[in-house]
């Protein structure tokens, strides 16, 4: 029982990264129709940036958790303004290819600068060590990561459901052409939404840095799982992205614990099962013909 709770916590912590990053992916896709292949690279940049901030500037975890999302927001705005924006009018495939190309460039630049071996990172003071609750020993950091991601997802959820900006983003996510016909300048929201999505990927990277190996390639596997998360949750569904993120984190953790050889496969078995039963994903809407 004790180990089951440990695995559950581990799954929720990992699920938190998936949920935050998938949330960013879903909002970008919804509002802009862009499948951002570079999301994994942005996650990696988030982790690398926190390692570099620590090593070069002595900025610890708490500084990074604030600074890195801001830096990645600005980076996202830059990329949207200089590259993504010009391809929006064309077939969505062009931006998919662009962000795929960006991924290769970013990953190789990081490799060139920091090498291929993992960058060191320390657990922040106060979050290292374990906590015994009712005889079960839990990692303090995993507990923090799980709770923090849930809170962040809630915060984004409140932003989306309780504010006018959120209402506009939800409307544009559902149907951006119709929103324009109803007098909403969707173009005005495109840049901040892209930056916001990238910032969420970066935040997931910061959270991952104390307990994942920080390498240039860490985003490669991540983006594949992230696409599985989005498909399971339902493309374009914000709630689906969050729920599926935590679900996939749990499946992965239980898989690693009870059937390590199948841990990765299990995620895709889950994805296949969801597609068979509900082709539009757990929270996706059926295609309106």
């Amino acid at each position: 029982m004790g180990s089951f709770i440990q695995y559950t916590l581990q799954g929720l912590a990992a699920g938190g990264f998936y949920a935050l990053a998938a949330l960013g992916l879903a909002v970008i896709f919804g509002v802009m129709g862009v499948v951002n292949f570079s999301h994994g690279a942005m996650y990696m940049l988030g982790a690398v940036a926190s390692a570099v901030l620590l090593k070069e500037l002595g900025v610890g975890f708490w500084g990074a958790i604030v600074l890195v999302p801001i830096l990645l927001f600005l980076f996202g705005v830059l990329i949207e303004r200089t590259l993504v924006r010009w391809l929006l009018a064309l077939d969505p495939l062009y931006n998919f290819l662009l962000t795929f190309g960006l991924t290769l460039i970013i990953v190789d630049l990081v490799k060139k600068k920091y090498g291929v071996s993992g960058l060191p990172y320390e657990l922040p003071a106060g979050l290292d060590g374990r906590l015994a609750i009712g005889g079960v020993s839990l990692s303090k950091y995993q507990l923090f990561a799980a709770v923090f991601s849930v809170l962040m997802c809630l915060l984004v959820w409140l932003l989306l459901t309780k504010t006018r900006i959120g209402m506009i983003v939800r409307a544009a996510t559902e149907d951006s052409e119709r929103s324009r016909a109803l007098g909403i300048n969707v173009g005005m929201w495109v840049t901040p939404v892209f930056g916001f999505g990238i910032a969420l990927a970066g935040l997931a990277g910061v959270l991952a840095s104390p307990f994942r190996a920080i390498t240039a390639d860490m985003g490669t596997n991540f983006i594949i799982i992230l696409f599985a998360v989005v498909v399971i949750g339902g493309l374009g569904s914000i709630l689906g992205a969050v729920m599926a993120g935590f679900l996939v984190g749990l499946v992965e953790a239980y898989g690693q614990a009870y059937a390590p050889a199948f841990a990765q496969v299990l995620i895709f078995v889950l994805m296949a099962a969801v597609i068979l039963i509900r082709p539009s994903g757990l929270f996706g809407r059926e295609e309106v013909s």
Partner: protein
Amino acid sequence: MAEHTNLRVEGLDAWYGEAQVLRDVSIDVEPGEVVTLVGRNGAGKTTLLRSIMGLHRQTKGEMSFGGTALGRTSPDKRAKLGIGWVPDDRGIYATLSVLENLTLPPVVDKDASWSLDQIFEHFPVLHTRRDFPGTKLSGGEQQMLAMARPLRMGSSLLLLDEPSEGLAPVIVQQIGEIIREIKSRGVSVLLVEQNVKFASTVADRHYLLAQGRVVESLGNEEFQSRTTELLEYLGM
């Protein structure tokens, strides 16, 4: 303010890729007028509405609204000029509540905008369902919501695409009453309608479209007296 509401389309051509779907279409809608576009499926009626809204961009020709040339103006700017969009799928947001659906679009003309109280007085069902998600409404209720939205914005022209489609006769009758109410306030309506009988109960004038061309333009009385002949001609 009435003189600001007229729509003028002159010599409009439109394409989907290589295929030309509108040919030299010229129509106008005067303030407070209800004008229909009648024609069979594929005649180009919806494309004409989408071009006026600025959603269909592959066009050539002149369009103006309230004296302002529309040119390449974006859809959201056209909406702000007072063109109200009521698409054939009703365009209700599933992820937004009825109230959010109503208040999402900006008010474009404070004087012409209906207050929420006025909306709920004319569409009581929207009041009872104000907190429901958009998709939990019946087809008729969705149509009411779709029409209430531009009224709340204060649009001076409604582009109404097949409002009666798939609705029970009693609901169609209600929609007819709403159109008359809209008209009485000086708002114009450009109506695409397959239900010719319904169209002739609300409209002042009709444009007949066939294969992307306006083949006839006539007043409602003439339209009513020649309905059978005209429909046969259009193949409806």
